[in-house]
């Protein structure tokens, strides 16, 4: 048997149920791998004692024979999820010392299904970033490496992607507001799905942009995504936008049969200056789906170009409102005050010290677009454009398209620090293929599909109809099988 930490969820589940392996053994293998991977800076809060306690409980449950699929599976949890009694900082200084007295619904569902939390994972501060470089914990590092440079694992779920790719855990939770699950998955050769808006409860997940945020699994295979997603989603009365819909058995929907499915190729995603390798991979992906019996159809999503600017109005606007709660009164950091400072100085100093530069920038741009006189010109206009972007997808689906194939990212992983001098908008371009999906509330999945000339992973994205994650996962698995991506990063850390 290969090292236990390298197993997939499906493999581990089957071994656990047969009694061939224990959750304690799986957990110890992961804890050992984490200990040896400090260089990756993926895990930022370690909970080994809690993990072993849960692993023992999982083993007892497995012995009784009625354990759910995630029972005994060691996972990492993104720092954005509030976990009871365990630091949950959203990678921000302003939440230093915060110990949630409650557990987020998604991590509670995983816990209750018997999954074992190994610790908390690095990310961009408040999930604002595409490279994991805005974290108070420092950069997370991609286990993939082709020269002496350290590469970004992507962001904002960079620690999750790095940990899964480096086999520090069997799977991890991520969250995705504009591409924060799919872009890091693509940069690390892993699989990540952002479900339909409303599939996963947002309760207890630190809010960034509430109308766009969704949690999802980050895993080694599409099958694992199906297994873990099922455990994460479901109706939650504590999130008023959580959908009151039954949760299907996603894994059972992986039939491998996509004959007759109509896959759209949106012409607006052929961006100027797109690397030839990405174009070729995209064409190859379409060919694989055609070979599997799908029909490939050219489609148009005319408002694609306006998705990024609309997103960078809406997301900061919501963030400026959501982040108003960090005021130094109820939790987290409070600045030391000078003699005579009043409450306004307390707010201003606390937030200046507690928020990093990117978060400050976004809160301020959000404040501006919501301010009197600019609300209509920016915020309302962006919300109208969002309606049009969603309508583009609705038209495509109404015309009989079942799923849409696009590249996941405009490049493979870049070097940490390489974008430091670039203006913020350059970094935002990372989300160009993923952000439309959040604006339209659709499910989207990134699947590793090949390596570029330098030997770094590249991913393709499939976008599905609302609430049809099962069909989307099935198509994704066909793509995964056809692409046959099996490369792993060579251990250097």
């Amino acid at each position, binding site marked *: 048997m290969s090292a236990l930490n390298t197993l997939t969820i499906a493999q581990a589940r089957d071994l656990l149920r047969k009694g061939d392996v224990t959750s304690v053994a799986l957990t110890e293998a992961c804890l050992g791998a984490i200990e040896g991977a400090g260089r990756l800076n993926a895990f930022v809060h370690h909970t080994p004692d809690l993990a072993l306690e849960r692993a023992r409980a999982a083993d007892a449950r497995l012995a009784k024979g009625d354990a759910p699929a995630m029972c005994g599976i060691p996972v990492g949890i993104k720092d954005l999820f509030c976990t009871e009694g365990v630091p949950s900082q959203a990678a921000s200084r302003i939440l230093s*010392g*915060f*110990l949630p*007295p409650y557990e987020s619904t998604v991590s509670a569902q995983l816990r209750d299904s018997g999954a074992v939390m190994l610790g908390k994972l690095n990310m961009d501060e408040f999930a604002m970033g595409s490279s994991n470089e805005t974290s108070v914990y420092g950069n997370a590092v991609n286990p993939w490496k082709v020269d002496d440079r350290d590469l970004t694992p992507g962001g904002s779920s960079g620690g999750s992607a790095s940990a899964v790719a480096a086999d520090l855990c069997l799977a991890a939770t991520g969250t995705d507001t504009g591409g924060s699950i799919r872009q890091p998955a693509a940069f690390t050769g892993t699989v990540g799905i952002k479900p*339909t808006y*409303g599939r996963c409860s947002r309760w207890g997940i630190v809010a960034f942009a509430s109308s*766009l945020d969704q949690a999802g699994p980050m895993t080694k295979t599409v099958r694992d995504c199906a297994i873990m997603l099922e455990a994460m989603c479901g109706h939650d*009365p504590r999130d*008023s*936008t959580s*959908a*009151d819909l039954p949760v299907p058995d996603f894994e059972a929907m992986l039939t491998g049969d996509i004959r007759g499915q109509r896959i759209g190729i949106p012409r607006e995603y052929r961006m100027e200056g797109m690397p030839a390798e990405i174009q070729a991979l995209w064409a190859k992906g379409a060919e694989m789906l055609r070979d599997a019996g799908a029909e490939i159809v050219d489609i148009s999503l005319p*408002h694609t170009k*306006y998705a990024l*600017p609309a997103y*960078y*109005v809406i997301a900061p606007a919501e963030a400026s409102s959501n982040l108003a709660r960090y005021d*130094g*009164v*109820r*939790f987290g*950091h*409070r600045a030391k*005050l000078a003699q005579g*400072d*009043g*409450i306004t*100085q*307390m*707010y*201003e100093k606390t*937030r*200046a010290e507690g928020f990093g530069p990117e978060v*400050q*920038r976004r*809160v*301020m*741009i959000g*404040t*501006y*677009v919501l*301010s009197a006189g600019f609300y209509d*010109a*920016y915020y*309302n*206009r*962006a*919300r*109208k*454009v*969002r*309606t*049009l972007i969603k309508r583009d997808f609705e038209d495509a689906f109404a015309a009989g398209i079942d799923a849409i194939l696009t590249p996941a990212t405009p490049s493979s992983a870049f070097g940490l620090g390489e974008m430091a001098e670039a*203006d*913020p*908008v350059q970094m935002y371009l990372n989300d160009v293929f993923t952000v439309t999906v959040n*604006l*339209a*509330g659709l499910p989207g999945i990134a699947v590793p599909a090949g390596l570029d000339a330098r030997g770094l992973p590249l991913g393709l994205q499939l976008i599905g109809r*609302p609430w049809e994650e099962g069909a989307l996962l099935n198509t994704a698995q066909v793509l995964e099988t056809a692409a046959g991506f099996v490369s792993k990063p060579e251990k250097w850390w």
Partner: protein
Amino acid sequence: MSEIDLETARNVAHLARIAVPEDTLPTLAQELSHMLSFMEQLNEVDVEGVEPMVSVTPMRLKRRADGVTDGDKQDRILANAPDAREGFFAVPKVVE
């Protein structure tokens, strides 16, 4: 329309309750201006008669009975406060 001057930057920082030192205001103004000019692309779109999106998935917000469902957690609520005294959150003097 998208040029943010120093005065506007200072005002936005104040509205956002973030202390920004005077010497970094020019950089901030420049960054905000640049972001806004990126957003100006939205002006190319014909949005005549288009409703601004309120909810991405068509749904009616759930209702529930107007009853007390939670409470009596003062200690737990105050446990994370930087300064809590006698059952209250403590802040600097608000009224002179």
